[in-house]
């Protein structure tokens, strides 16, 4: 049992350095998504009622494929950070909390991987 209070222990040790990383990453991905979801909405208007051939041609074009991959990475990353905060705020059973954090991350990275592979498969014509 230490008689020193936590503040006194921390004082003079400097900042933990990574304290704002989550906050910053959430906003940086939000800013990227602002443009990428804008592109998605624009594309939705273009592709409304599209036949299969048009949808395929759309995703196969290099710029659309690149934007879609950027969107998938930013979207799943931003969603992962957001779900993490929601779990931290509302789930207070330690075991369940760890499981949900794991599933959130596993799901986000799986979503990115599956999406990127399928977009590349179309774009590269494999």
């Amino acid at each position: 049992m230490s008689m020193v209070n936590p503040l006194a222990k921390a004082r003079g040790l400097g900042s933990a350095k990574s304290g704002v990383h989550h906050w910053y990453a959430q906003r940086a991905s939000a800013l990227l998504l602002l443009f990428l979801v804008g592109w998605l909405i624009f594309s939705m208007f273009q592709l409304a009622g599209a036949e299969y051939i048009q949808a395929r041609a759309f995703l196969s074009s290099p710029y659309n494929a690149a934007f879609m991959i950027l969107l998938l990475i930013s979207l799943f990353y931003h969603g992962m950070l957001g779900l993490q905060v929601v779990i931290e705020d509302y789930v207070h059973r330690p075991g369940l909390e760890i499981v949900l954090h794991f599933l959130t991350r596993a799901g986000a990275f799986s979503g990115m991987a599956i999406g990127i592979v399928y977009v590349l498969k179309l774009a590269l014509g494999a």
Partner: protein
Amino acid sequence: MIGPYYRPQLTSIMSITHRATGVFLSIVGAPLLLCWIIAVNNGPQAYAGLVGFFEGWIGKLLLLAILFSMNFHLLNGIRHLIWDTGRALEIKSAYALGWAVLGGTVLLTLALAGVLL
């Protein structure tokens, strides 16, 4: 925020809606975007199947919910980013931007629903 002393306010309702739409987009919206990409990969039949699902009433309702959530989270996200720069934090501007976000969400959702549903 729920209790005998809580009075619903635009600001707090929009705050919890931002979270709710974020969770919904993460666990339903993003996977459906993946479904669309996979369907385009799997050929005309798979694509027709997915389009068919979104033509039924369950699919239409789901798509409407996703469009609303996407537009709300996008526009309200801009409001949050403005706040993060230290601007528009006064109660009056928080409300004005709040109403602007709601109006924009309704208009954008109607426009997208008009062409997609």
